[in-house]
């Protein structure tokens, strides 16, 4: 068994007594052949959603695409997830909401930056992975930018089973759909009457991290899939508009860009999601972290190659 193939290398990072596993996608040009000033490039480190392992087809697709553009890309399993050692906390999502993974990830970033002689890392996370990315960016000098995919800024509460059943009913039946509209209409009204304040379950430490990161001038790209029962960037009626709030509270030197990818869902795993994320991310990377001496790959070439990846031919 080999730990590497032509385009990838399996890497182990020892942090906090655990061996953590990642997959490194080699950039299109070998860093070791470059002059010292050319080595100054960022890598992209991807954290998958929730408890998913690092190798979903979309994650592999994005990593391969970035590597082809010249950016080293790393897919990473946090402690206890995927192949990495470690215990998963009993209340894992509370742990995520508290930024519990951030110290280990920050330590791993140091290791990876040194190992591959990178100038820094852009953290790219999906859902809970985005929450961990933001907490980490606030404490890591190695993290130079963020791509947050459908992040959430509240602390998820345990839901009663009856509430899950009601949600299902409101999605699957006509009367349920109507009842759902009425319920969310009332919620919207209540929110307006309360002055559209931050909800009680807002994740305040995470919002502080946001202010720290944006005021430090680290660029942030937020990618949004259409939310449940809504189109465009606005949340569903009755829900607090965190993105509007976050753009207001970002520091003066902040560069926050929000893009909506229509036609996909929260996982961004379908063709529309995969391609939308890739296109927006590559454009953003080229703008904020240009590869100084790289010949820009022609868009058609990148697209052709990307479409040839497993699972994404059309």
């Amino acid at each position: 068994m080999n730990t590497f193939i032509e385009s990838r290398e399996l890497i182990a990072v020892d942090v906090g007594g655990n061996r953590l596993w990642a997959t490194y996608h080699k950039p299109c040009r070998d860093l070791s052949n470059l002059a010292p000033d050319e080595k100054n490039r960022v890598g992209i480190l991807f954290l998958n959603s929730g408890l998913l392992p690092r190798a979903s087809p979309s994650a592999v697709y994005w990593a391969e695409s970035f590597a082809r553009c010249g950016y080293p890309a790393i897919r990473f399993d946090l402690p206890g997830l995927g192949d990495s050692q470690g215990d998963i906390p009993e209340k894992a999502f509370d742990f995520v909401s508290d930024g519990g993974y951030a110290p280990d990830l920050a330590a791993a970033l140091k290791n990876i930056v040194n190992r591959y002689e990178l100038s820094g890392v852009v953290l790219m996370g999906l859902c809970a992975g985005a929450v961990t990315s933001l907490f980490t960016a606030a404490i890591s000098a190695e993290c130079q930018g963020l791509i947050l995919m459908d992040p959430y800024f509240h602390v998820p509460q345990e839901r009663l089973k009856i509430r899950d059943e009601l949600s299902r009913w409101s999605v699957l039946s006509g009367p349920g759909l109507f009842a759902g509209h009425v319920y969310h209409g009332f919620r919207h009204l209540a929110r307006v009457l309360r002055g559209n304040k931050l909800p009680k379950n807002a994740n305040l430490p995470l919002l502080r991290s946001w202010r720290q990161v944006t005021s430090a001038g680290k660029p942030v790209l937020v990618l949004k899939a259409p939310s449940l029962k809504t189109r465009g960037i606005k949340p569903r009626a009755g829900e607090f508009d965190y993105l509007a709030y976050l753009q207001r509270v970002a520091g003066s030197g902040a560069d926050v860009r929000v893009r909506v990818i229509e036609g996909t869902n929260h996982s961004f795993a379908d063709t529309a999601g995969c391609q939308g994320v890739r296109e927006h991310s590559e454009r953003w990377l080229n703008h904020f972290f240009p590869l100084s001496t790289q010949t820009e790959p022609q868009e058609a070439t990148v697209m052709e190659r990307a479409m040839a990846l497993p699972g994404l031919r059309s």
Partner: protein
Amino acid sequence: MGATPSVAVEKAGYFTVPGAHLYTVLHEVPNPVARVLLVGSFVAERHTAYIPWVRWARFLGARGIECLRYDYRAIGESTGVLEEMTFDHWIEDVQLLAGWLRAREPRVPLLLNGLEIGAILAAKAFEAGSGDALLLWAAPATAHEAIRSVIVRRVAIEYAFKFGDERKPVSQYIRDIENGQPLDLEGYRLPSRLWRDSFHVQLPRQLASEGGSFFPPVRPVRMVELDAKAAPLVKGSSLLDDALARDLTPLFFENFQWIAQAMAIPSAGRQ
């Protein structure tokens, strides 16, 4: 369930097969009493089952049983083009890895353990002569049965995120794939051909008809039905609710005991 203190060293690596590299993780044990090749679940189910599948490998490793788990060709971390795959390629993966595992120490018995579609692949390889014993978890009668249930889950997700005019019923997805369109399963574009082939990929006759406990020449076989209590090892589970809290130790222990008996492991129960 907390992590079991493991004596196994986990080594990730790539195993070369024709046209691709299989991602493998060997739970290496010094002087193992047995070896197990773990043939996991398919496409989208792989993700939800991953954590308990790894825990099962660690559970066995802690009891002196060396395990090899892997991703099918063109699935997960393995390379390859899904559109070019056939079920025969995946059966070949099982045979090649079983051969590699066997060659590490031919005197140590080898068991094939398959989950869902992986159970059919493991059984096919076993029928062709790989392995000394076979343990099947949640084996569907055909691969088609398993894929169809994935589609139903996919439709449930679509219903949550899409408006009425954008939604399609299950029957429409099936018509589409039967008309030659690929089916998008959590990022895996399943070609129509695989859907058609899946009708014919089934458990070997001896197992399908008798749920046999032995396979000629006499090699032990066990088939275990898994219900919702085994989630998220099997489909139908919610990651948030089930993946962490569910303690699968009773299931693991019971199956370990069967393995110890079937493989005549003298020190069964060693921690």
